[in-house]
């Protein structure tokens, strides 16, 4: 029976209330532990296609008659276009159309960040359209940009109101402390740099529009495009079968989709608008920089009495001020916590969600601060965390489940290695081990729907308008359906990536795809299974008759099971937890830092595909290593113009930078959460990596690194500071 309910929905740490229709979520969870198919490693269903280059990405699409668009973007962080003449571009060979600021909402004469779209052209070839771009006559009045986050806060140039949160009495907590540690941490701007750049191919078919787009949310694109073009939703079809990376930056249609749509309309041809690598490094979003001024007070036994922080998110021109204070508010049992968070509005490209926005940055600050405290108190960092473990939620509803202590327990053998690791230090190369904890959301939620179709050949197809953004959800959904139906994995195919085929499915962001979609797929498979059991009963077959035999009489008829994601447990918050232990080496004469090993233990409920899960952990850690050691988007300090727009200047980690990675999952189903007890794992693995590395550096050298990335200059500065301190006779960790 369908039920109409009102429930709370969380994405990337932001909550909203939604109405939804759900089917009864009556299935009992499977017992814990590996099943026939769920909980056992499965290679990706589409792995061979991807490896052979047969998988067709948006970037591979070549539709008949397709034109290529190019976008004129502001080279200045703040400028006014005083003159714009598209005629010379239109006169060039192969050029079909050009549009300017008065012709599309996404184009503007007022440029408030580098990369803001001003005009666009389309031509038969990409080379022709890029040549046409250079022919456009454009004059700018260049204005002074606002670039400094602290100055923006002082001037009141903010995105949203400052967020002040206090529980208990922070001042009293500080007064009760035996020791207080204060430190300022800074994190840099990092770029998603998806291998497949942001792009769309748009084609008008009658009064409908088809949008092929590299996206994390085909249904959201459908709604946003319909809204933007003034069309009913069912006149917009969105297709994304394969996706080359998004990491949070591909949730919305953005300027390029609307540019392609407008040019396609004008030319009556399909139009591709693909960002170049330089545009990807400029106009595709970023993880914003932060400044974190943090304080911790503790008793001499390590009990936290006060945590405080002023957080400045250097958001850019638009976006939102993410929850950088989240880890400080949520991770530890501390009665007195006070945070204030500012979102600085700057003439820099807008941030976008980037794999656990806010929590990656905030965990670096908080967990590095905790280790500075541990050093000052001469306490074992793991013991300090255990002493302040919060059995109950620090605020609001209770945890649906929490196994962080189990994560700590499983991390012990990795943590114990520190004696042996340190012993391998030499005069110039110091080695050490550090750890950091992780807290994040990842419970997913409704609405999400799926169908499971079973044919007379006994094969099943999962049909849903979700997307696989490269995380392997296609495979995980097939595993769930195969498990519930009791058929081999190879007998299940998954039809996804097309808003015109299959029911509504949720966004692939906020570590939500598996916990949102998995229960709907299981419910749909169970619905099909029940129908098949009824048929078996009517055919008077024994209950153990294989599914294929039961349905073999159906010929062309099919069984269709429908499933919906039920609500999250009321009065509970669903969170993920974990810990990482990093082993690093530091060349104390050259400032070189390299990571030798990272062990990760995460608690995300039931694991559907252990192989896919370990891939997620490895990917998160590798991206975290880049964030920690080498990646940084730089801009010219005077003009604010971006300097690192190519992959030689913006330094992603290479395979040579990847250490040994040991991933472990607690794999205890969350008994309160859905018919699976599964949470998401997309974001948790990147959260503690930076702090674990920074803490390992302290363990190795006694130096407090407080800024990301930990370049040679930051490492050498921290080493100098530590040496100064030693000279003055103070122990490590003391300011």
């Amino acid at each position, binding site marked *: 029976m369908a039920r109409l309910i009102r429930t709370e929905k969380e994405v990337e740490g932001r909550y909203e209330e939604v109405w939804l229709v759900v089917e009864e979520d009556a299935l009992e969870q499977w017992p814990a532990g590996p099943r026939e198919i769920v909980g056992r490693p499965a290679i990706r269903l589409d792995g061979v296609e991807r490896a052979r280059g047969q998988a067709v990405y948006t970037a591979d699409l070549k539709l008949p008659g397709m034109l290529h668009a190019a976008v004129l973007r502001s080279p200045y962080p703040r400028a006014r276009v005083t003159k714009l003449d598209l005629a010379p571009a239109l006169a060039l060979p192969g050029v079909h159309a050009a549009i300017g600021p008065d012709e599309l909402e996404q184009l503007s004469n007022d440029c408030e960040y580098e990369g803001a779209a001003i005009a666009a052209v389309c031509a038969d070839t990409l080379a022709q359209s890029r040549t046409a771009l250079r022919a456009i006559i454009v004059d700018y009045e260049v204005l002074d940009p606002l670039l400094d986050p602290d100055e923006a806060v002082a001037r009141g140039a903010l995105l949203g109101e400052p967020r002040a949160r206090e529980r208990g009495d922070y001042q009293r907590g500080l007064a009760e402390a035996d020791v207080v540690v204060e430190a300022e941490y800074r994190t840099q701007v990092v770029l998603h740099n998806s291998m497949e750049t942001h792009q769309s191919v748009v084609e008008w078919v009658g009064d409908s529009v088809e949008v092929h787009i590299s996206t994390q949310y085909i249904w959201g694109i459908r709604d946003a495009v319909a809204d933007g073009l003034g069309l009913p939703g069912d006149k917009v079809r969105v297709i994304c079968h394969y996706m080359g990376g998004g990491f949070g930056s591909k949730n919305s249609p953005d300027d390029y989709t609307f540019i392609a749509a407008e040019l396609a309309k004008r030319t009556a041809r399909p139009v591709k608008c693909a960002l170049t690598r330089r545009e990807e490094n400029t106009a595709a979003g970023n993880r914003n920089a932060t400044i974190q001024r943090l304080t911790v007070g503790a008793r001499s036994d390590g009990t936290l009495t006060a945590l405080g922080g002023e957080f400045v998110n250097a958001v850019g021109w638009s976006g939102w001020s993410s929850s950088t204070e989240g880890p400080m508010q949520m991770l530890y049992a501390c009665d007195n916590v006070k945070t204030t968070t500012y979102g600085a509005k700057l003439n820099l490209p807008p941030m976008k969600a980037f794999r656990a926005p806010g929590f990656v940055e905030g965990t670096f600050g908080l967990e590095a601060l905790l280790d500075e405290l541990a050093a000052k108190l001469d306490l074992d960092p793991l013991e300090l965390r255990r002493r302040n473990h919060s059995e109950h939620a620090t605020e609001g509803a209770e945890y649906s489940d929490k196994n962080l202590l189990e994560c700590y327990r499983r991390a012990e053998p990795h943590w114990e290695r520190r004696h042996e690791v340190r012993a391998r230090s030499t005069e110039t190369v110091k080695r050490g081990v550090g750890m950091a904890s992780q807290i994040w959301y990842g419970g997913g939620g409704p609405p999400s729907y799926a169908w499971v179709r079973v044919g007379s050949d006994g094969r099943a197809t999962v049909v849903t308008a979700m997307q696989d953004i490269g995380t392997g959800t296609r495979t995980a959904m097939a595993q769930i359906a195969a498990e519930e139906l009791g058929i081999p994995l190879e007998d299940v195919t998954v039809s996804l990536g097309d808003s015109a085929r299959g029911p509504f499915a949720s966004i692939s962001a906020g570590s939500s795809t598996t916990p949102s979609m998995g229960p709907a797929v299981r419910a749909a498979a169970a619905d099909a299974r029940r129908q098949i059991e009824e048929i078996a009963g009517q055919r008077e077959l024994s209950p153990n008759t294989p599914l294929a035999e039961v349905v073999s009489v159906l010929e062309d008829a099919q069984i269709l099971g429908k499933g919906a994601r039920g609500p999250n447990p009321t009065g509970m918050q669903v969170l993920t937890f974990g810990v990482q232990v990093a082993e690093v080496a530091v060349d104390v*004469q*050259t*400032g*070189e830092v*390299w990571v030798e090993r990272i062990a990760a233990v995460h608690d995300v409920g039931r694991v559907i595909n252990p192989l896919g899960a370990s891939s997620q952990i490895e990917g998160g850690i590798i991206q975290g290593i880049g964030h920690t*050691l*080498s990646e940084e988007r*730089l*801009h*010219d*300090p*005077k003009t604010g*113009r971006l*300097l*690192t*727009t*190519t992959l*030689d*200047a913006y*330094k992603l*980690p*290479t*395979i*040579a*930078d990847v250490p040994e990675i040991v991933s472990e999952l607690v794999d205890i189903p969350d008994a309160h959460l859905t018919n699976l007890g599964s949470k998401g794992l997309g974001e948790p693995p990147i959260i503690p990596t930076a702090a674990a590395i920074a803490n390992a550096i302290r363990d190795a050298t006694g130096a407090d690194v407080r800024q990301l990335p930990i*370049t*040679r*200059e930051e490492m*050498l*500065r921290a080493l100098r500071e530590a040496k100064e301190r030693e000279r003055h006779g103070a122990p490590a960790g003391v300011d």
Partner: protein
Amino acid sequence: MELLRASTSDDVEGTPLAGGTEVVPLLRAGLLTADTLVDIRGVVPRGIDGGRIGAGATLAELECDPEVPEALREACRLAASPQLRGMGTLAGNLLQATRCWYWRLDWPCRLHGGDECFARDGEHREHAIFANGYCASAHPSDVAAALLALDATVHTNRRELRLAELYRLPDEADRRTTTLEPGELILELDVPPADRSVYLKAMDRKRWSFPIVGVAAARRCDETRIALAGAAPIPWLLAGGLESATPLPGNAYKVEVATTLVNRAVAALNVV
């Protein structure tokens, strides 16, 4: 744009193209304009014969040839990525342009004929610590530093010169960083044997990174030559010590890194 194939090394008219790992990106970025590209792979020697090395040899060929002195082999091995080393040639590597982001983004800087060095007062953590008063760009070639330390001789289609003479510091009258004339091609290099040579490189990541600083050192009898990559607008022969460096506020760390690498390189030369 047309592509021609050179039939003789005598007079190449147009922009020479060999591995293309530098020319093609520069063309795409609009930093180099050319009506004619001339494929010179048929006329530039590629073989390695003792100390004589064809300028068309790829870095990949050099890095695994036991006849090549260790500093040069190691400089090749630590340069770029395997794919780039498979295409990029020795001479092309010597003639590559700076990675200065202002220059690469076509800011009207002194190297581009303008009247300002934007890096000096701007973002310069990757920039020069020597000879950086006029232009703070850093020369990125690992290979050039190795050949400078090894005191290689360059044979072009017109003349013979020492490697140091291939480069010049840009100044107000002439912004070029090499002395190569239009139409002049590097054909071969003579690399005299050394008793011992090494190349040490500091990078922002383990691989595929231009040098923060690269240190090449070669010992021949009592003479030791040390050359730096990533330290000046051209490959830099270290006369005195690092004390004479003139770092900018944001790249003093390079002096510290270079000092350590020079000490380690010298120590490595003297290990029996």
